């Protein structure tokens, strides 16, 4: 939905996972969506699966970014953070990150290696992001207290309206 809103004012391309549409590029409204799969068939865990999917995401995203100049990379949640941070560094674009929730919210008492890894990925994302969007106060608090993210970096956005997100996009474009 966000990409549809944004496509009214700027050029938007999205890269997403869909095992049934691998390799397809679809125009959804004004948004060009590239669908990818994970070529790595053997994965030990969900974390592994995400990390290997990140390789394919990085390949396709690099291809798109080498073809066209983008101003902003917008990542969603921890699954795409590592790739987005590296793309930001490689292409010198701004990085926006929407945190729909944090690992500390989902599993507050978990001390597993998986949880630790996800938390570390989220922390890295918050550290390198230029702006972080959250949808609710709870996630905001988690970012402030669990990951010590500076408050000025975080923007609360309404899930259905996105005005604040669009404002931030406009600032970069202008």
């Amino acid at each position, binding site marked *: 939905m966000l990409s549809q809103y944004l496509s009214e004012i700027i050029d938007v391309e999205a890269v997403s996972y869909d095992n049934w549409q691998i390799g397809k590029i679809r125009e959804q409204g004004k948004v060009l969506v590239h669908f990818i799969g994970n*070529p*790595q*068939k*053997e*994965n*030990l*865990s969900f*974390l*592994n699966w995400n*990390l*290997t999917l*990140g*390789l394919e995401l*990085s*390949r396709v995203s*690099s*291809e798109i*970014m*080498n073809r066209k100049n983008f101003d902003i990379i917008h990542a969603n949640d921890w699954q795409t953070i*590592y*790739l987005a*941070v*590296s*793309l930001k*560094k*490689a*292409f010198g674009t701004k990085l926006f990150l929407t945190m729909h929730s944090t690992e500390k919210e989902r599993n507050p008492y978990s001390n*597993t*290696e*998986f949880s*630790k*890894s996800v938390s*570390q*990925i989220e922390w*890295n994302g918050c550290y390198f992001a230029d702006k972080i969007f959250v949808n609710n106060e709870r996630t905001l608090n988690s970012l402030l207290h669990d990951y010590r993210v500076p408050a000025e970096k975080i923007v609360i956005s309404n899930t259905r309206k996105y005005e604040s997100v669009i404002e931030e996009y406009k600032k970069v474009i202008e």
Partner: protein
Amino acid sequence: MKRIMHLTWEFPPHKVGGLASHVYDLSRIQAKRKDEVIVITRNSNGFSEYEKIEGVHVFRFNSNIPEEDFVSWTLQMNFFMQNKAISAVKKIGKPDIIHIHDWLSFPAGFFLKHALRLPLISTMHAAEYGRFNGVHNNLQKMIHELECRTLFESWRIIACSNFMKWQMHYNLGAPLDKINVIPNGVDPKKFEIDFNRIEEKKKYALPYEKIVLFTGRLVHEKGVDVFIGAMPSILYEFPDAKFVIAGGGFTDDFRRIAEYCGVKDKVIFTGYLDDLELKKLINLADVVVVPSRYEPFGIVALEGMSCRKPVVVSDTGGLGEIIEHERDGLKVWKEHSESLSIGIKRVLRDKELSNWLTKNAYEKILTKYNWDLIAKNTDDVYSRVLEEYNKSDWKKN
């Protein structure tokens, strides 16, 4: 002049296996040949984040990663590696070639290849399939798949031996015409060290004892158990033999085997030794033993040969290619303690044979396994890749 970027998970002083020495020697010789060389590696012990070592730009990244399993740890480690590589590109400039070593740096190499549109070259030092004679569990399957992808994504592949070339072809599906065989090398000057031999020997053996040395990781494929199995027979003829096993790994398991074989008083497990200690120990040895079950190359044999020590190796993998039997070393059957004991006893018994082997072996080191030759051959591979790359649509698009 080429600008080369090596990605490696280990680099001196941080060492896990033989990869660190390989990248160190190759990169410093490349820098000596007037190439601009960048090494991106892991910082594990508070070493400097950037330093220039013998003309090589070494960038180290810090990574404190939770370890759910080894593969997820490696994949996350590569995130830090690729970010450091990008910082290095900004500081030094865009490289002409990205050279990765094993699957451990493949994810970062893969990212840089596609983001910067550069040719990727990989050196495969070992393969999971060979270590355990097949892939038997999910962890191995995942590593195997990542290794296959490493080879698939590489413009050209460097194998350290013909054995590895065929392994990569049959087991990992790499096309033969994509593979170049370039052996590893050794710098014999590094092993010429001055030290008090009498004092040093006291650490391991009595003055009259003969040191039979094994160095390497104490894991199944290195055949430490085969070596221990050969000890009783050697001790029967040479009661003054002392067996020194240097390296870290499953020490307790092998200690138990030594106890079971009744030789525990004649074996010393030194644990992990630093570079200098190891060099001293090889210089003190009377014979160097490499009883591996699986050995893609066998750098330990070269180290022994550099110190002018007779080497007894199992006839497997790259080891079988390094050693010419009864000319520069002795080859014995693999996984065969009796055969190994016969080989060790021969060199302990026959001083003339021992001298003949060490003389020929040292000559071989100087002519075939010197780093200048290896760097030149590697450079030929780079030149070929760059020529193809410059003509390719992939670069233009």
